[in-house]
């Protein structure tokens, strides 16, 4: 375990180099968010009442919480780096060292998120403060606790999925197109673009059988009070099962890939 703490430490030091980049990214990222929020405001202004089950404040909160969850859980450069490690033969060293590549990468992911969050929290918090009259808080502390737990599972789910995708580099030279295609699905079916329960019910229902809502929509829905009672526990259990499935899939991909691996340039 100690060696992984060491990896974590090195990861944090490496990521600190990019702090200015992170700040730029977080600030630029707020601009499309402002655009989306203004768009919804205009929609609400031209219409009486709610959209789906959302008031204007809940809708704005939804997007703000998406930004928060994204800050904590988004896979940043990890998948590109993993693919590059395979392509350039850098993973050879992990095959002869007593280090598990998946755990090594997980440590770097955690380090990256920690530094990104530390930097991005400033502009994001200022922005949320400016929108405070539209920012709802969770119903109670237990809701907040479930939200936090769900975020951790979202992070793991996103990481394992990206890891498995990046391992495609064992078979194909260029994985970025595959990553972007999957990301497109995560973006729309995961609820980045709009809350999934404003879709027609049959479509929202169909999506709930895919892992995508558990990569973003589910924790946010806990926060804004759309998942309560039995739905909450059932959702948490489903999310946990998806995390396990993604973990096993990542392991499986690694086991198959390593058989194919020929240590190019290594």
């Amino acid at each position, binding site marked *: 375990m100690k060696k992984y703490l060491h990896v974590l430490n090195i990861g944090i030091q490496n990521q600190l180099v990019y702090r200015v980049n992170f700040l730029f990214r977080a600030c630029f990222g707020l*601009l499309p968010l402002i655009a989306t929020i203004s768009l919804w405001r205009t929609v609400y202004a031209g219409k009486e009442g709610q959209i789906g089950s959302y008031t204007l404040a809940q809708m704005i909160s939804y997007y703000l919480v998406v930004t928060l969850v994204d800050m904590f859980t988004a896979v940043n450069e990890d998948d590109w780096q993993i693919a590059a490690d395979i392509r350039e033969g850098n993973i050879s060293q992990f095959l002869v060292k007593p280090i598990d590549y998946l755990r090594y990468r997980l440590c770097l992911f955690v380090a990256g998120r920690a530094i990104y969050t530390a930097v991005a929290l400033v502009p994001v918090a200022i922005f949320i403060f400016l929108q405070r009259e539209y920012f709802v808080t969770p119903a109670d502390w237990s809701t907040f606790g479930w939200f936090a737990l769900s975020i951790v599972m979202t992070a793991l789910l996103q990481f394992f999925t990206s890891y498995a995708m990046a391992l495609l580099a064992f078979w194909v030279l260029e994985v970025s197109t595959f990553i972007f295609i999957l990301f497109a699905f995560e973006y*729309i079916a995961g609820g980045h673009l709009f809350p999934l329960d*404003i879709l027609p019910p049959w479509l929202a229902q169909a999506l709930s059988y895919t892992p995508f809502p558990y990569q973003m929509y589910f924790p946010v829905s806990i926060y804004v009070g759309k998942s309560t009672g039995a739905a909450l526990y059932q959702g948490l259990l489903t999310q946990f099962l998806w995390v396990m499935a993604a973990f096993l899939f990542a392991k499986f991909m690694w086991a198959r890939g390593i058989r194919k691996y020929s240590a190019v340039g290594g």
Partner: protein
Amino acid sequence: MNHQGTKTQSPDKTPLVPSCLGGSLRRYLTVYIALWKNSVIREMSFKTNFILWIVVELLWFALQLSFIAVIYSHTDRIGDWTKWQVVLLMGAAHFIQQIFQAFFLTNCVELSELIRTGRLDFMLLLPVNTRFLISLRKVDLGGFVNATSALVVIGYALKQLALVPSALQLIGFALLVLTGILIHYSLMFLLTTISFWTVRAQGIVWGYYSLFNISRLPDAAYHGFFKAFFTFVLPMVLVANVPAKVMVQKLRSPGELLLLVGMMFACAIVSEIVWRFSVRHYTSASS
């Protein structure tokens, strides 16, 4: 990365004093054709990847359109914009973005790499305008394919709106789209020249790219300082909205039209001034 060699073999010797403008134009055309040839060869050596990138772009375009579909399943207006008007706007924005991407994006992004590695030295030595060369070095052919998908969407939206644009509207639309592309090019080139001072410029360039999201939405959605900033400083709100408005006959006065053209000249001039200033201060990476 040896294609530099092939590109520099423009056989005709440059006259010390350009004999006439026509000759110089022909020379640049020859150079540009050579650049195109190189790009086609480069793209075709990764055919599957070329097609997959088109799939990626199509998917993201469809995703933006479905967002609009979802919004309009709950309302019939965003400000004074109806559903198919917004679809047309999205088509226009996508078209502008894709053509920009086809000609300029890769080149703008790569400038910081040229500076970091010192390869810019070789470009400066070539007997062509350096800005011409680094702006148009590579052509991203996928952009043209994706631009067609945008045209299809524009056409379909026109059909739904039961509009048949006049020749004048079409010409106006084409010119305004061109204006929009030049604005994006000037601004992004301006940002890339920051690489002369810091290696972090690439992040800023990609940041600018996220602003394309703003140009896709109807101007009625924006208010206050945000709208003013993205109209008069970075004219994102105008770039696709003005041509789309010409097409759906939404333009009430020629004011916005003139503003867009004016902003284009302003952006182009500022970007050229900054470029000249930057090149004068280029010290080269030790190569």
